[in-house]
């Protein structure tokens, strides 16, 4: 058992913030400009991804992107307020399944990679978005 505890120590160290003057999460994502780039890159992918593109037929993509930037900004502790509809209402009638939801997560990871967001910061945003599957998924 002692050996096991010793094996865990590096992980505990890794999970502690390394600097007292760390950037805020919002700054790590490049603030408004960075989030706009990420959401632009995300939608460039979602609109061609065979797993997701059908959901955006005739959708007001520019408006959704603006709202998504607002939502991410608010979730990351930035100076924004999400003004869109609740997630549950916004996804009614879409019949989004888990595979499509996960495809969105993957495309978002790609967009964050492309914009230089560190992996562990990415996960902090994904942790806030993940529980929304209950409001987004399989809502006829």
């Amino acid at each position: 058992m002692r050996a096991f505890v010793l094996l865990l120590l590096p992980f505990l160290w890794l999970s502690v913030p390394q600097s007292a003057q760390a950037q805020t999460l919002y700054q790590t994502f490049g603030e408004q400009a960075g989030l706009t780039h990420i959401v632009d890159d995300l939608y460039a992918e979602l609109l061609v991804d065979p797993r997701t593109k059908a959901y955006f037929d005739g959708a007001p993509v520019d408006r959704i992107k603006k709202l998504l930037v607002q939502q991410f900004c608010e979730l990351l502790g930035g100076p924004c307020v999400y003004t869109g509809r609740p997630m549950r209402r916004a996804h009614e009638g879409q019949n989004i399944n888990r595979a499509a939801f996960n495809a969105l997560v993957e495309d978002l990871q790609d967009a964050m990679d492309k914009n230089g967001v560190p992996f562990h910061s990415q996960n902090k945003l994904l942790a806030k978005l993940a529980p929304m599957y209950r409001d987004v998924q399989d809502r006829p």
Partner: protein
Amino acid sequence: MFRKVASSTFLLGLAACVCGNAWADGDSPTINGKLLLTGGVSEVEGAAGGGLTPWAVIGGNGTASQVGGNAHETYIHTQDFALNTQGATIGVANRVEVSIAHQSFDTRDAGKALGLGANFKFSQDILGLKARLLGDAVLDQDTWVPQVAVGVQFKHNENGAVVKAVGARSNSGTDVYVSATKLLLAQSILLNGTIRLTKANQFGLLGFGGDKSNAYHPEMEVSAGYMLSRHVIVGAEYRTKPSNLGFAREQNAYDAYIAWAPTKYVSLTAAYVDLGDIATFTRERGYYLSLQGGF
């Protein structure tokens, strides 16, 4: 050794891929719905999990309406022994998992000292069933509720006469377990705990029950991992085991691992493993390699 592991795993993986394509032909392009590494790898008894212990996750890349599966080959090498495991896992609708595994435990030179003959091999077949009861380890990030699954492993040792001669009561046994798995996504940490009821001696490779005890023992298995990237997780595991045989004590096992998944369909796990005393040989330590291919 590497060539042998690679070639037979390739064949197993190929078999899995053929099944996958057959399924995908009649289905939508939304197949392969799980996120990278969230289905775990294949533990040494065939179930989806870490290296030495099952997790509550369901193997394969399938989501709600999908079937996923994989095949794996695992090789453990310590000073005196070697263990080779081949197996396949099918996950249905992210709810039920069926796994099969064949283990071959090579006593190498130790076989001579044990009076079995050099390179004597113990063989064991394992049929595993697992059902997810509740929770989503990955997505339920706003609650502490983990993903919970129950499982059963039916094990049959093919060397009945030998395992009974060293004191085992039976050459077949059934393990029952409950696993709880939680991804702490904001911290990039994955935790798992498993409680197993078992009579198995050295995973069942030395039979079940013994002259010291023939009762079911509750054993504890824990693992923790830290995700370095989407493709790499490092971690450690600890597994307690009963000690039922009078001729040689059995000890707990632990490992420190790194798993790499370049794509959703392939993963490679390497570990340092300490299995403790085995059959009078002390402090058996060495390496663990596992290759998995799936759909």
